[in-house]
């Protein structure tokens, strides 16, 4: 049984001009101890997915259809109370802007202790102290800074504190939503290494949400590329990065500089299969307007899933001209 099984998830928002779909027919699975990366430009719905996993959609958002199974139980069926007990204990989150993720009027340590205490009411005071020291140790923040206020921390420290907070209840899954966006490159690198270390040490699973393909590439085994609420390509890291199929992925990759240089996915490009899955999507391809390779059919007929390998698929009806 996979740790997380998202099936055909569709999320929409109420707006003044009617409901607007933000995430459409998204399905994926995540095994224990694995890291999944979701890549896409801002507004593509990747954060919405993260939020839906915690049951924290904004007040005007709602799940239209689909299921979210965590260890086999349906998250969407949980009551408010069950959901509260579930959050952080099972799935925790590292938020986008660590600057704002910490409450400015409370001491950082207190904010972390708060989470531990809620989910482990049986813990003694010493036990909690021990836990928090361990956590700070893990994220390399000196112990004497535990009970400082957030404004006394540097940006990187705040981010590490947020990570410590996310790990405080030993969750099975950590969602990291743009954990490094606001930081400078050096600190970014440190943070990502830290995350990788911790993953290795604690063996937790993770979902890594970023618009920065380089960051994702570094941390994750599986990659999902999203465009306008839909997954356009998903597969193993090597598959997606080495042999991208969807024109959007290609565009994304070719525009990105890694620390080692431009992604070099043309080098040893494997044969790409052209098997279309039978299920069709309603509506035409959202990328067609911007796609450099769009053909007439792209503007009239809906796109199709193409299975390149059992683990690698893309939502595009173009075939055989992906170079």
């Amino acid at each position, binding site marked *: 049984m996979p740790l997380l099984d998202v099936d055909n998830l569709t999320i929409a928002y109420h707006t003044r001009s009617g409901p607007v779909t933000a995430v459409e027919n998204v399905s994926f699975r995540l095994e224990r101890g694995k890291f999944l990366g979701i890549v896409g430009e801002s507004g593509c719905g990747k954060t919405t997915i993260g939020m839906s996993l915690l049951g*924290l959609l904004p*007040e005007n958002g709602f799940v239209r259809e689909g299921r979210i199974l965590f260890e086999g139980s349906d998250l969407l069926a949980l009551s*408010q109370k069950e959901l509260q007990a579930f959050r952080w204990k099972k799935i925790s989150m590292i938020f986008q802007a660590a600057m704002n993720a910490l409450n400015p009027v409370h001491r950082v340590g207190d904010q972390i202790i708060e989470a531990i205490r809620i989910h482990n009411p049986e813990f003694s005071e010493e036990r909690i102290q021990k836990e928090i020291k361990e956590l700070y140790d893990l994220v390399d923040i000196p112990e004497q800074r535990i009970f400082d206020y957030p404004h006394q921390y540097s940006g990187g420290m705040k981010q590490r504190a947020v990570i410590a907070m996310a790990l405080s209840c030993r969750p099975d899954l950590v969602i990291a939503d743009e954990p490094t966006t606001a930081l400078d490159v050096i600190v970014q690198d440190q943070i990502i290494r830290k995350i990788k270390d911790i993953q290795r040490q604690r063996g937790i699973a993770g979902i890594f949400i970023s618009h920065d393909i380089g960051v994702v590439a570094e941390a994750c085994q599986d990659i999902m590329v999203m465009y306008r609420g839909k997954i356009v390509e998903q597969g193993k890291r090597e598959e997606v990065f080495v042999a991208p199929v969807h024109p959007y992925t290609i565009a994304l990759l070719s525009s990105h500089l890694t620390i080692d240089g431009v992604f070099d996915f043309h080098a040893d490009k494997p044969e790409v299969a052209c098997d279309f899955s039978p299920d069709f999507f309603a509506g035409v391809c959202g990328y067609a307007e911007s796609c450099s390779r769009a053909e007439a059919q792209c503007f009239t007929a809906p796109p199709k899933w193409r299975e390149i390998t059992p683990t690698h698929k893309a939502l595009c009806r173009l075939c055989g001209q992906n170079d």
Partner: protein
Amino acid sequence: MTITSNRHAAYSMENVIDKKTRRSYKRQRFSAGWSLFYKNMVGKIGLYLLILFGAMALASYIPPLVDPMYHPMTGVDPLISYASPPSWRHWLGTDNIGRDIFSQLLTGARVAFLVGVSAAFISIVLGTLIGMIAGYGGRIADSLLMRFADMIMVMPSLLVILLLSVLFGQLSIWIIVILIALFRWPAVARVIRSQTLTLKKRPFVDMARVAGASHIRIIFRHILPNVLPMALLYMTFRVTSAIIVEAALAFLGFGDPNTVSWGMMLQWVWKTGHMFQAPYWLLPPGICISLITLSFYMMGRAMEEVLDPRLRKIQKADYAAS
């Protein structure tokens, strides 16, 4: 997209977009704002109340034309020389010397509008100017003006005006209006200043400066139109406080004796000993003062929600994390 940021965009592209589109855009923006305003229950109640008071103010010209005895100040019923309860002849009764309370009430609406709107207008003009100068002018002007504003803000305006009236004698209604305005601008200035500070950093201001526009031109042509909605919003709040201060002054007996304002009416009912005997005389002016301030306040709050993009985001709230 929010209305405010659209607005900045619209003005920054001043020369790019032709006038026609701009006008239609403005109209669209207005109607969007209007529908939002109208959906707001608070705003709607406020608007209806305000229309009611506006109608009262306009109607105040009618009674003296019907019969001179309905003149709010000088007209008395030849047959009634005491406070009388409502009747067909006097819908809300008469005061102790036989004047018609209903026509006084209508005139009170006129005075309230006059006092409220003119005092608010003056304080808005002052506040906007000072706020823009402080925000645009830079550090010295800014800190001087804002310290000054803070100082005025801690002054209890009603008591200061009372003190002035003891020093200078009875104040006329216009002096009262001006004094109220002089004590009510700082809050406006603060808001306008902070708006100006953000506007100053926007590219269109830089563009205008590069293009050689003078400071005055930048302030009036580029900054003013953008802070105007906020100033208008604050005007509604200023109206309420002006009306309250005038009413309180009149109630305490320091109002202009030649004006029939609601505060004046309360003062009459109080000082002539009819307070607890003539509810038909005591209740209407008090209710009117409370309601007119309420209506302006409600309008202001509704406008605030229309204008403030951050508040607007929260629309339908089915809370409890759906």
